[in-house]
């Protein structure tokens, strides 16, 4: 189907391994002057490859009525000759008549070099656009955006009922006969046209493909070839394969586009892309070479050619200054080759400078210079390179793991040697000294744990009496379904209490219900000071670390810290809240409740031990009416004021008290945790409370609105996120959103009862207390026992006090020693049988049990966290 551009009038056409050269000549050969006026004659010369060049085999001619000047070859190609079913070379000739009409002759060439007139027709315009020969032989063309063709049956000019802008392909499709693939302006369905957001190709790019079956004279679905989007860019198409499978047309299509790409489509889906090396590709054809390789040959407007291998869509070769490229089995090897005809300055024979290749074994050229023949090994080389890189990486990975193993082994060895040393020391009864980093003069690089002298000046608040004025404020708020009642205590009073709780008692006499209202108690600690993390921005040079041994400065420091801490203790810490369900109370329309405070008051005894006494105090009354609630008197008001959330302290406490509280410990192993903060401030649209900056309020519309967060970083890689949320759903929503922004290998852990570090510290303290309790109680018992018992031996006469060696010099002394030993033994037996006061014992066991209980509690919490 090669349509050779009419160059010097000679057209080359491959046919059956030969090259046909077609041209128009004046009938009586020779006479120079009258050539143009002479009658035209179409001539053909069959050339075949032999002895390294194309040799003339045979020739033929066909007389065209009319002058040579008026005649011309429009195009030539091969098409099926329908009477015989054989594919024959065809030529379309043009002959101007005296009127403006143009007469067209379609000739087919038979084996005996005999031309046969297949059909002829007359038009009042010249054929220019998209002229194509197809089976019959017949011809189709485009004129004034209409598609015309000669009907193979009736031999008359017909037009297809379609407006088109170009024909990109015409050829045989199984079951459909000759099909034309064209491009036209998209016709959108009404719904599509209206929908501005339509994502269909036609709506976006504005043109579409259409298929038209010439024999059946019907439109075909065209999406089985290519997506419509490509109708804007495709310049030439080749259908490599088309077959009907289960009434579905399966196709392999290759197309070149104005975007300088070659695209392979399988069943209408783009499967591969190749960037073309030159601009403006204009046509594509294929060649099947040895090994059943499909080569895609792209011609460019500039006269360049490139060949792409279909299996990997990589440019295999390219040439410049090519006049035309023909595909056929020229060397007679059984598969096809490319015949490249190069542009030649000398006006010599068309077949003078050529090259025959199949990019494989067959390579033949006529001995001319050609340029830019790039070997095809690029792709292979790249593959090799990638493989090597991959192997290298694997090797490196192996090496690192070996190193890691070595390190690990080294570590184990060290532990072993250290243990051995310790064991040896143990056996030889030496005290084993662990290797320490800290030696004199060296300031340790690590935060060494210090035990500061315990010089806490405990303020002995001997206020065992309850002060007259201890409630600073009593308030109530309605948060969602709950009623929150808060009692703010004076600071000095609050500090003397422990185990504080509130209870609400209905004041009126409703016989039907219990007067005590079930409620949850909470004490929420809020810090007003904003905890700035990361690098300390203080520009002052700190004193050298050694100075820390200076006790005086240490005390000063301690005082300062104390001051700061007391500043941090805010109202929140002195407020006790009780939360209860609102709706049962509302049933009474108007209800009055008494608020009671329960607490343990600490008393300091003379021996330093603390004793606590349970107290219950009346804090006041609250009045709850439906009307007030409806008026929003007790509702929480949170406003967003530029970068802060404003709300009274009571509002904040009410929200926190009414919410569920969850703490999560977030630990990142490799990346800093800045994303949590940006998540809170960005995605969750949080703003900090003006009253306390470290709690932030979520303003994001929807379910999560009103959630309060607290994000405390312990180090750049560890922090605790506390959520105060209305429901578990909200919690899961927040966590889901959070997990997307957390860096990889992050460990998020729910802290059920305080963080592990705090708990461990508490446990240590509790155990210490336990130990102290048993020791003090035992010593008190001993002192009492000593008082009651009259001991016979004098102190200082124990055997252990005297040097044993000197006692064992003589028999006498040994005897003496024996006596003493006997004495002592008796004494100790006596000591063991001491009796004990019952109340003392009771007191003692109670104390010990209490202490054990508290440490057991902590252990339990620790085991659950």
């Amino acid at each position, binding site marked *: 189907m090669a349509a050779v551009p009419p160059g010097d009038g000679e057209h080359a056409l491959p046919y059956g391994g030969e090259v046909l050269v077609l041209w128009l000549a004046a009938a009586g050969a020779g006479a120079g002057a009258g050539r143009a006026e002479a009658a035209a004659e179409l001539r053909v010369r069959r050339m075949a490859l032999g002895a390294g060049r194309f040799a003339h085999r045979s020739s033929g001619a066909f007389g065209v009525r009319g002058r040579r000047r008026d005649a011309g070859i429009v195009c030539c190609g091969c098409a099926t000759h329908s009477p015989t079913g054989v594919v024959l070379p065809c030529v379309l000739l043009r002959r101007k008549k005296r009127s403006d009409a143009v007469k067209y002759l379609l000739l087919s060439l038979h084996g005996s070099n005999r031309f046969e007139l297949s059909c002829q027709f007359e038009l009042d315009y010249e054929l220019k656009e998209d002229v194509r020969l197809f089976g019959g032989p017949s011809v189709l063309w485009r004129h004034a955006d209409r598609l015309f063709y000669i009907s193979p049956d009736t031999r008359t000019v017909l037009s297809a009922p379609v407006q088109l802008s170009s024909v990109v392909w015409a050829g045989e499709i199984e079951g459909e006969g000759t099909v034309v693939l064209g491009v036209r302006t998209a016709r959108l369905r009404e719904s599509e046209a209206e929908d501005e957001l339509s994502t269909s190709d036609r709506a*976006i790019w504005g043109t579409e493909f259409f298929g038209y079956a010439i024999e059946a004279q019907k439109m075909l679905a065209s999406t089985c070839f290519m997506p419509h989007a490509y109708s804007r860019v495709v310049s030439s198409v080749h259908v490599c394969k088309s077959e009907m499978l289960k009434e579905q047309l399966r196709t392999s299509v290759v197309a070149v586009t104005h975007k300088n790409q070659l695209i392979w489509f399988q069943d209408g889906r783009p499967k591969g892309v190749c960037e073309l090396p030159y601009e403006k590709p204009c046509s594509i054809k294929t060649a099947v070479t040895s090994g059943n390789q499909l080569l895609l040959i792209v011609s460019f407007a500039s006269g360049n050619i490139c060949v792409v291998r279909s299996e990997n869509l990589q440019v295999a070769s390219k040439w410049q200054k090519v006049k035309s490229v023909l595909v056929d089995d020229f060397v007679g090897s059984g598969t096809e080759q490319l015949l490249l005809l190069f542009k030649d300055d000398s006006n010599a024979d068309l077949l003078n400078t050529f090259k025959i290749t199949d990019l494989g074994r067959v390579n033949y050229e006529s001995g001319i210079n050609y340029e830019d023949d790039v070997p095809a090994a690029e792709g292979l080389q790249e593959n090799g390179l990638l493989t090597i890189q991959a192997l290298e990486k694997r090797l490196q990975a192996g090496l690192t793991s070996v190193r890691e193993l070595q390190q690990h082994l080294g570590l184990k060895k060290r532990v072993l040697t250290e243990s051995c040393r310790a064991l040896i020391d143990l056996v030889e009864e030496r005290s084993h000294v662990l290797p320490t980093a800290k030696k004199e003069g060296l300031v340790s*690089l690590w935060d060494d744990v210090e035990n500061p002298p315990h010089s806490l000046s405990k303020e002995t608040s001997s206020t065992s009496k309850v002060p007259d004025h201890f409630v600073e404020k009593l308030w109530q708020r309605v948060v969602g379904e709950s009623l929150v009642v808060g009692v703010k205590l004076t600071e000095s009073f609050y500090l003397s209490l422990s185990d504080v709780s509130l209870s609400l008692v209905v004041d009126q006499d409703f016989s039907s219900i219990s007067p005590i209202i079930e409620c949850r108690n909470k004490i929420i600690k809020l810090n007003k000071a904003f905890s700035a993390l990361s690098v300390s921005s203080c520009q002052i040079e700190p004193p050298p670390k050694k100075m820390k041994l200076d006790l005086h400065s240490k005390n000063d420091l301690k005082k300062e810290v104390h001051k700061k801490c007391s500043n941090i203790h805010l109202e929140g810490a002195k407020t006790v809240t009780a939360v209860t369900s609102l709706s049962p109370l509302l049933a009474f329309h108007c209800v009055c409740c008494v608020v009671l405070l329960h607490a343990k008051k600490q008393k300091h005894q003379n021996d330093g031990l603390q004793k606590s006494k349970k107290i219950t105090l009346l804090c006041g009354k609250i009045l709850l009416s439906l009307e007030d609630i409806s008026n929003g008197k007790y509702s929480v008001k949170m406003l967003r004021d530029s970068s802060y959330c404003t709300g009274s302290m009571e509002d904040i406490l009410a929200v926190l008290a009414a919410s569920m509280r969850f703490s999560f410990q977030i630990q990142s192993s490799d990346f800093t945790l*800045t994303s949590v903060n940006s998540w809170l401030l960005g995605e969750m649209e949080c703003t900090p409370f003006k009253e306390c900056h470290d709690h932030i309020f979520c303003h994001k519309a929807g379910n999560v609105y009103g959630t309060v967060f607290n994000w405390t970083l312990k180090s750049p890689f560890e922090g605790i996120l506390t959520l105060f949320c209305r429901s578990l759903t909200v919690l899961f929503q927040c966590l889901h959103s959070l997990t997307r922004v957390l860096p990889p290998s992050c460990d998020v852990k729910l802290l059920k009862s305080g963080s592990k570090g705090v708990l461990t510290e508490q446990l240590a303290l509790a155990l210490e207390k336990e130990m102290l309790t048993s020791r003090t109680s035992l010593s008190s018992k001993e002192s009492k026992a000593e008082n009651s018992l009259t001991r016979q031996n004098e102190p200082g006469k124990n055997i252990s006090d005297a040097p044993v060696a000197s006692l064992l010099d003589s028999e006498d002394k040994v005897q003496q020693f024996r006596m003493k030993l006997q004495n002592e033994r008796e004494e100790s037996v006596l000591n063991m049988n001491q009796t004990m006061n019952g109340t003392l014992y009771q007191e003692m066991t109670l104390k010990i049990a209490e202490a054990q209980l508290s440490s057991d509690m902590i252990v339990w919490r620790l085991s659950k966290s």
Partner: protein
Amino acid sequence: MKRRRGAAPEPGCLRVWAAESEALAGRWRAARCAGPRGAEAAARQQRGAFGELLLRMRGLPAALPALPLELTVVYNSLLFVMGTSDRVVEGEAEGIRQGLLRVLEACGSSGQDLSTEELWQKVLQELLSSAEDSGRAPCSRGENKLLALLKAWRVPAKGASTSLVQSAENLKETLCTAAAFLQGLQELEAGNLPAALSLLQKAAGGFCSKRVLAQIYTCLGCCAQQMGKPQTALQHLKRALQVDFQCLPALSHVAAVYQELGETDAELQALGLLYEALEKNPPSAASFSPYFLIRTELLVHTPILTSLLRRRQPSEVKYLLAQRCLQEGRVADAVEHYLDFLAVLQEGLQQQVPLDGGSALPRIPEAFLEAASALEQDGRHRDAITLCEEVISRTTDLIPRALLLVEEGLEQPESPSPGTGLAGGLLSQKRESLHCLTWRAAAYLHQGWAWVKLGENKEAITQFSRCLSELLRFPLCGPGAEPRGNLLAEVEVLQKIRLLSLIGRGTQFLELGKHKEALLDFQYGLQVSPGDPAAASYLVQALWKLNRKQEAAAHWQKHLERPTGEDGQQEGQGRPFPLYLVSCVKQAAFPQRESLARSIQDYLRTMSQDPFS
């Protein structure tokens, strides 16, 4: 039309691409959790897949409805290209440019020949022409423009970004950190320390990996050190090590800070720790962290960072330990470290010795000589002699018979001729020969003094003589013809060796009672180094012993009547001599200055009382 209405809507390219992009991003999200090795391979695959998808998308005319998806794919593709390469390369800029051109194409305009900056402006104009001018960042005066711009970037809502392989929010934070870090380093380089400090602190508060955070803290430490705040520096460096103990450069900076503070114990311990850590942790190759494609590490590459984070070799640290011990007079420790260092050198020279300019290592013979010096001070004279023998045998063939050309070599650099390259080469060759000569002579010198300590006067004299005959290869410059230019330092060292050798031999002659020979040597020594107190003292002593008391007194008055303190100062003023000569200088000091002074003064007194005796 009826037929078409019934058919299912064909899958448009846009939808197909969107699905493909989504699928690729999803696959990546799954792969990156699978561990570094799988993820690295996946990243390379994804780079190819996104590249191909982009190629396909660019095969069609740009269209506004397809633009968001196309830009998403451009973004992903660029991230993979950058994430799988070691650092930012030029290719990305072209990728961005292509993306911008496509935006313009979709808007119906073109900008093929605009610069990238102009392209950005045009694109923003096209896209934001209707939108309000909200992009302008509130940049207060004096604040850092780039950082302010980055901070003001309001990242689009998450909804559109599910197919992004790295969230824009994350990218923003990474960029903020990288920008602050880079600018901080620039300011640090420019000596703008407060600005550098605040920028680096900003960087330390940003999003980054442990490794980078440790690097930032290390830089903060260096910055604080340069600001004269050693304690702050120590705190920062400590943080660096807490964050990532693999950040060993922090440890060597710690040693430097302690040295500055004069805390030698701490410094030596830090160095010891560094050596141990280096021994145990061979430098690991930068591991591929698959989770984030764009990381601060990729964006921050400056020479100053490389030099700040230079990882010392174990041999280097060992040498530093040895050298510092020797400098601080901890001779026994120094000997241990020097011997260890020499053993390391024996093991494998090629791997152990860094050849770049920043190395702390001296030339190997100098290290040998320092070791010999340490051994000698530790009383291991025979070992010191053996070590010096090594230096001598190694340098035997390296020195030309005579260095007559030295004079030319010295003069050449003063005239800036076009052939400076050649002259420079010649000069460096000269310098090298000079170095060899110096080492060899110094080795003989050390041997001489070691024999002195062993009481072998004759052997000592032999060695001193060898030293002097070596030095004869290099002609002595008279005091008038002072060598100038590049080789001054080397020549000064040579003269010092000559002086010390002469004094050494002189003292040995004195001990053998050869006062005249001794006198000659001391006189010669004074010629070499006029005013040298030791040489002068010995000269006076020699004259005294020869009973030339008047001359002795004259010399005493001429050279030595200044108080001793001044001499010390004078010595300190000059160029510091190599570490290996310090012990010899000490040994050559005149020991009985007080008694000599007394006898001279007695003599002078009697002379003034009785001038005719």
